[in-house]
Structure formats: structure tokens, C-alpha cells
């Protein structure tokens, strides 16, 4: 809020100064198209559906036994007992569990696809430490067979991020997990963009070995600060242009800079930060950095040491996206604890998320969350299934800025739903049916609903 006050003042002053000047002849206003690659996603064929007599985890912290879920016009209409609707398809889900569609906030599907091939390795523009100008969506190969595998694991929405070689890796994109020939056909309508940032070992290793800054963690911080300082100037120039134009002047538009457009988008509150950042001391500095330049530090990904500063993360409103048990592959992943997610989650106003960063574990985020729940409960926590489900649904939606659209089974939300064969936090759990916007996109027992990528088709 603070940052808006000066511009209001500027506006007030400029109005009084220009009052006596006749408005100049204005050139056409320079407008920047903020959505040049718009979503063309279309809901798949869907019909009114009632899932009957399931154990339902709503994603709002509730568990309902023997409950029905009504999906109408692609939205969740109601969750409760004995629902009915005209012409509804009835699915008997007795003994089965129902949850919101699973959301992975950290995936590289499509940008590091299978089969792994250099020609398809498009996830990291590791050519300079600030590549805010690149957009992961421009690298997505929609035929990655991994999307289909993930759908069979209940993934309905996922954020595709650039890699972590750079301080600023570029924009991430949020996708619906539907098969399509184009990235635009998967793009989640009206989801905000993310900006990938990276702390720690990766940027300093990638550039340090090239004898280019950053080579140290202080080099990392300097790199962020210089970029944000430049972005602040850029934003000021555009804000001034907007104000002057609105005042009837004929200002010269600032030179367009694709890299700075993205950083300005963050300063304007339109793009959310997704920050690869393992260590407590670095996350704390990234929070201060965000305050220094007037944006929100967003979600910390791979936050191995989030448990060390869980209070601070909750106070500042940061989400932390974590693995249950990956560790030891580098120094910044040495201090893993299996209860990390649970410790973060235990604080008021926290936002704990389980993420994958893997084309394998994205197929079982439910089990990844389960591992945390059980280990934590062996060590003094009392986490229930109705709480653990939020780590891969509601909290993930919040991190991506789509919590008004998906992530829970509340009335009016998109009907993104998974029917599981059992308690989803079992090693034997499998998604049986998956719905996106009320349309069935996967059925374990009906090949008609099992998509096959172009790559896999016809292979012998």
C-alpha cells in the first residue's frame, strides 16, 4: 500500500499544474499487451454428474463421510447428503474417497520432457543470470507423455517453471492438465504469471564457473538488487508516461524492455514470485529484499529449511513448497527433516505446500503428502487427512493466485475433482477418475479416457 502514496501525490500535483494548459495534440497511446499468448483452453465435453456416498475431503479442512458431490455446468454445485439433479450421471463411489484436483506448483513437464533429449531440453536459458525476459510457456512441448502420467495421478493443474540456473529464470505458466496440440490450449484462463527466482548454490555455481557474477551468495543478492533497482526506474518511467498522458500531455513512451516488463509486473502486483530457495538465512533475506523494493516475496520452493523460520514465513504471508524427504544431493539440501511441511503448517496463517519438481513424484503427490502426515504424527503432531490434503490443493492454489477458481470443493469453484480407490494417503491409493471443469479427463478402467501422446502413438 505504501508504494501507491507517492504516485497519488504526483497525480494531484500534475493536475494542478496542467489545469491552465490547453491539452496538446496527443499521439496514439502506447499500450502494452499483457496477454499476447492467450489461453485457448476449452472445457472438454462435460455433463451434470453426482458422485455418491464417498468420503470427501473438501480442501477447506473438512471431511464428510458418505457424502455426494454434484458437478453442474463445470462447477462444484454442492457437497452434501443425498443430492440430486435432473439428468445427472451418477457415479457410485461407496468406499472411495473424493478430493479436489491435485495441483503441483513446481513442475518442468513439457520443458524437460520425456524422452530426455537435448533437443527437448528447453527449461533453462542459462546464458545470463537475469533472464526475466524468457517465458516457460514458449518452451512447453504439449506432447510430453509426462502430462498423461501426471493426470493418472490426479493432477489437474500445474505450474511449469523455468529452471534454477539464473537469479531470475523467467516467467512460469499455469496449465490445465488437459491434452492439447498447443500450449495455449492448456493455459489456465486468467491465472497470473509467476516469476522464477533462484537463491543459493545453482546461480553461483553456473555463473561462478564461467567467471561471471554471481560467484557467491553476496553476488546473488547484488544481482537481485541491481535488477530490482532498474525495474523500479522502468516502472517509474511508465507510470509517469501513463500519468502525463492521462493529464492530456503528449509524453514520449519509454523504450519497451521485455526483461523489465516482467519485473515491473511483479512490482505492479500482477506477477507472483516463485523463488527456488532452500535455506533459512536466504529466505529471510529474500523477504527483506522484497520489502526493500516493494513487492511480495511469494512462494519459496524447495524450502528445505522452512521449519527453521516457520514463524517468519507465516507472519509475512509466504507460502513454502516442499518435498517430504528429498535431501543430501547438495549442501543446501543437507538439513532436511521429514516433518518440515508439518512444522510450517502448524503456524497460524501459514501456507504449506507439497510439490514435486519431478515427472515421477508428480504422479503421487497424494503419497508425498501422506509421508509427511505419518512421520509428523509419530513425532507429536496430530494432522488429519482433511488437513494434509490442503498441502496439494487449496494452499497450492493460493500460491498460484487461483484460489478463487480451484483448490477446494466449495460451491462455485471449478469442478476439478479426483475419485480415489481408497484413502489417498495410502501407498496403494490410485486415482480412478479425474475431472477438470466437470469434464472427465481420466478413467483408470475406461481406455476412452486415457490419453496417449503423439510421441507414444504407434511406437513398436
Amino acid at each position, binding site marked *: 500500500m505504501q508504494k501507491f502514496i507517492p504516485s497519488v501525490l504526483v497525480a494531484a500535483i500534475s493536475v494542478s499544474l496542467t489545469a491552465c494548459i490547453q491539452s496538446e495534440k496527443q499521439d496514439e497511446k502506447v499500450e502494452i499487451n499483457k496477454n499476447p499468448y492467450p489461453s485457448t483452453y476449452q472445457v472438454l465435453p462435460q455433463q451434470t454428474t453426482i458422485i455418491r456416498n464417498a468420503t470427501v475431503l473438501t480442501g477447506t479442512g473438512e471431511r464428510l463421510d458418505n457424502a455426494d458431490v454434484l458437478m453442474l455446468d463445470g462447477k462444484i454445485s454442492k457437497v452434501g447428503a443425498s443430492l440430486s439433479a435432473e439428468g445427472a450421471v451418477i457415479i457410485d463411489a461407496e468406499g472411495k474417497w473424493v478430493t479436489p484436483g491435485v495441483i503441483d506448483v513446481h513442475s518442468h513437464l513439457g520443458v524437460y520432457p520425456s524422452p530426455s533429449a537435448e533437443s527437448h531440453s528447453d527449461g533453462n536459458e542459462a546464458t545470463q543470470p537475469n533472464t526475466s525476459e524468457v517465458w516457460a510457456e514458449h518452451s512447453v512441448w504439449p506432447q510430453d507423455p509426462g502430462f498423461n502420467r501426471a493426470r493418472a495421478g490426479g493432477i489437474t493443474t500445474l505450474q511449469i517453471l523455468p529452471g534454477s540456473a539464473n537469479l531470475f529464470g523467467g516467467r512460469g505458466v499455469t496449465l490445465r492438465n488437459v491434452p492439447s496440440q498447443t500450449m495455449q490450449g492448456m493455459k489456465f484462463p486468467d491465472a497470473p504469471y509467476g516469476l522464477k527466482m533462484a537463491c543459493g548454490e545453482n546461480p553461483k555455481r553456473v555463473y561462478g564457473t564461467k567467471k561471471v557474477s554471481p560467484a557467491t551468495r553476496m553476488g546473488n543478492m547484488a544481482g537481485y538488487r541491481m535488477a530490482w533497482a532498474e525495474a523500479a526506474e522502468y516502472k517509474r518511467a511508465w507510470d509517469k508516461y501513463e500519468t502525463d498522458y492521462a493529464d492530456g500531455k503528449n509524453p514520449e513512451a519509454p523504450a519497451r524492455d521485455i526483461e523489465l516488463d516482467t519485473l515491473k509486473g511483479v512490482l505492479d502486483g500482477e506477477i507472483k514470485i516463485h523463488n527456488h530457495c532452500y535455506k533459512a538465512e536466504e529466505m529471510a533475506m529474500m523477504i527483506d529484499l522484497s520489502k526493500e523494493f516493494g513487492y511480495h516475496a511469494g512462494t519459496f520452493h524447495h524450502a528445505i529449511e522452512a521449519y527453521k523460520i516457520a514463524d517468519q514465513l507465516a507472519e509475512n504471508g509466504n507460502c513454502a513448497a516442499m518435498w517430504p524427504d528429498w535431501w*543430501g544431493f547438495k549442501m543446501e539440501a543437507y538439513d532436511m*527433516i521429514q516433518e518440515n511441511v508439518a512444522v510450517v503448517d502448524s503456524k497460524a496463517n501459514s501456507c504449506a505446500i507439497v510439490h514435486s519438481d519431478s*515427472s*515421477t513424484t508428480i504422479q503421487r503427490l497424494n503419497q508425498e503428502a501422506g509421508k509427511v502426515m505419518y512421520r509428523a504424527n509419530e513425532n*507429536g503432531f496430530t494432522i488429519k487427512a482433511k488437513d494434509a490434503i490442503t498441502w496439494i490443493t487449496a494452499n497450492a492454489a493460493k500460491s498460484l493466485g487461483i484460489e478463487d477458481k480451484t483448490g477446494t470443493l466449495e460451491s462455485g469453484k471449478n469442478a476439478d475433482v479426483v475419485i480415489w480407490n481408497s484413502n489417498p494417503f495410502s501407498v*496403494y491409493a490410485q486415482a480412478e477418475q479425474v475431472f477438470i471443469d466437470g469434464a472427465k479427463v481420466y478413467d483408470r478402467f475406461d481406455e476412452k479416457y486415457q490419453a496417449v501422446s503423439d510421441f507414444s502413438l504407434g*511406437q513398436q
Partner: protein
Amino acid sequence: MKLFKASLLTLALTSATSVYAESIAVTNATIHTMTEQGVLTNATVVFDEGVITAINPETVNADTSIDAGGKTLTPGFIGSMNQLGLVEVSAVSSTRDSSEKKANITFDASAAFNPKSTVIPYTRKGGITTNISVPRGGDDMFKGQAFLADLSGEFDSIRTTDVAVIVDLGAKRKGSRAMEIQKLRHKLQDAQEALSKAKKDKKDAKKPKRADQAINALLAGEKPMIAYVDRATDILALLALKKEFSLDLVIAGAGDAVSVADEIAQAEVPVIMGAINNLPSFDALHRTLASASTLFDAGVNVAYSVSGDTHNLYMLRFDAGISVANGVSKENALKAVTANVADAFNIDAGRIAVGKKADLVLWSGDPFELSTRVEQMWIDGVETSTLSRQDALRDRYTAETDMPRAYVK
């Protein structure tokens, strides 16, 4: 209270015992023997001096008796195809000892094994009591010799060295896979010819070089050759080599084994695979979560290994559970992490029988379930803790204190 708990933890962390205290009987257990005895309920196992001395004796004679309350007792699970004890932090090169550019078939990394690695107690949480570490080697297609170690954390952890030869074939970043398989064939042929010449010409016979001795051991069937390959054509080429040279062959990776499952079964070649690898590569276009099930159904002896980083080894039991969800019987999945691993490497482990090492795990429930934990485990007959550095960190950061956390120990 918290301080008291913390000091208990410290005690536990430092007191992995190294002496055989006394004979122990575990009674009233559901014992998965992994032998012809199958699953025994309300059963008793007695062990002494690290060895199983009785199963269901008429009278239980032991210094200590533990009532398992009907819970499941299995052989300790066996890890394989990883670098346990040879790596502490993967990206810190000074803590890695599995690779050596000049390594050849004789490379034995066991001298670098670190029983004090923090990865070991953490891995015990997965019910793993023994492990076959394999070298990553260097430029040569032979990566070196595998060794068997237990997870006691003691300095005498290594049980057997030179357990198996590791060879890496299949897709190449540079050059042709054909060259490697040809080289392997030539090596075996040359060694065979040298051996028969030496037999005929005894007085001129020189002692063969160490690398040749290692090849000769393969020709004599003294130890298995573990070959990493995925594509069906490479698997078939290896099956042909096995036939030609009577090798004790094991296929590792085996991404496209499902395409030649019957041939593998017929050749009685075991397969070591990641049970959850289901993404295609050009060498493994057909792998799915049901691959393990298909191979078992064809009659292949399948063993599981955890893909990727060694630190993930503790997840072995979860991979087994996922394979059950995808068609493998629970008993076969249990074999794939115990007896079948032992059989693939010809090691004496993975079964509960009189005379076998007492590497045992008592589980709180179904060993594969996420909600289950190890209740007690014995390695070489000695009860061993599953507490790790991770537990110490958790306790430090969940303790109530007014002081900096560094004072919570």
C-alpha cells in the same frame, strides 16, 4: 522435559552397539520367512551371536524375549545399485568416492566406505539392514566391483567385497552401442582362448593380470555380471553372451524388459529394476507401472532398486508398495526387496531361516504402507536404532526455548 528427550536422542545416536549382548527371542510375530516355510503366524524366531538359531522351537530359550504382538517380522530389506557409504553430499566432490576416471573392472570402492555417513541411519528408517554398493567407475564400460555392507554404522560393516562386476552398456552419448557389446564379446573370447591355451601349455603359463583375472571369474561363473541396459535388443544381445560364455548374468535397469519378458525368464536371468520408472526413453518406450507385474507373471525373478540419488534409498519399501498397487502380489514385492536381491547377487541374506544372519525388522504394520514405521530392527543380531540426524534437527526446532536453538542439543 524436552531437554531430557534430546539427551536421550543423543544417547541413542551414539550407542549403536557393537557387541552381541545376549540371545533374543521374538515371539508372537507374523514372520515372512521368504523360504518354503512361507508366512508363519504366532511364530517365534530365536537368534544368538548374530545368527538365527531356531524358528518355532518347542521351548523358547533366550536371555531376552520380545512379544511382537502379532506384528510383521521380515528379513531386513536389501538395497542395491546405489552408492551408500560412498557419498555424503552428492554435489560435494570431496564426499564422493564412487567414481574414478581410470577405474576398470578391478575397481573396488569398499576401501572408501564410510559407516558414519548420515545417510546410513536415515536409510535404516526404511527397514534396510544390508546394501550392495556399486561403483560408478570411469570411462571404461566396466565400472568395477560391487560390495556388500550392513547398515550397523560400525567400522566392521563390510561383509563381502568383489560381490559382482558392474558393466554399463546400451545407449551412448558418443559413438555406437555396438562397439561396446563387441568389445565385451572380444574380451570374453580372448580370455577364454588365453585360459585354454594356458591349460594346454602349462609350463609357459604366466599369472594373468588382475583385470584378466576378473574376467576369468566371470567366465568361471564365480560371480554375477550386472549389466545396465534398457533396450530389448541389448537385453537379447546379453542373453546370447550369457549362453555363449555361461555367464551369471543379471540385467539392471531393464527399461524395455517387458518386450522380451519370456526370453529373460527362459534364460533364468534376474532383473533389477526401479519399480516406479514409467516414463519413456528411446531405449525404454514400453515401461509402465505394470512392468514389474508383467515380468513376475512371465516368471522372471525381479529385484527392486531405488533410482536416482542414494539418499532416496529408504523409499525402497514405498516403491514395492506402489508395485503392489499395480499388479504385483505382496509376497512377490517382498521378495523383490529381500530374497530376490540376495539371489541376484549370490549373497547370504534376505531370508529368515536357521543359520542365516539375524538381519530382522519388526514393523508397526504393513511394511509397504506409508503409515507404517520400523518398530525394532536387528542387524547381525544387534538391535539398532533408526534415529538419525534428521530427528535431532526436528527436536531442536520444535523444542520450547528462550535461547538460540544452538543451545538445544
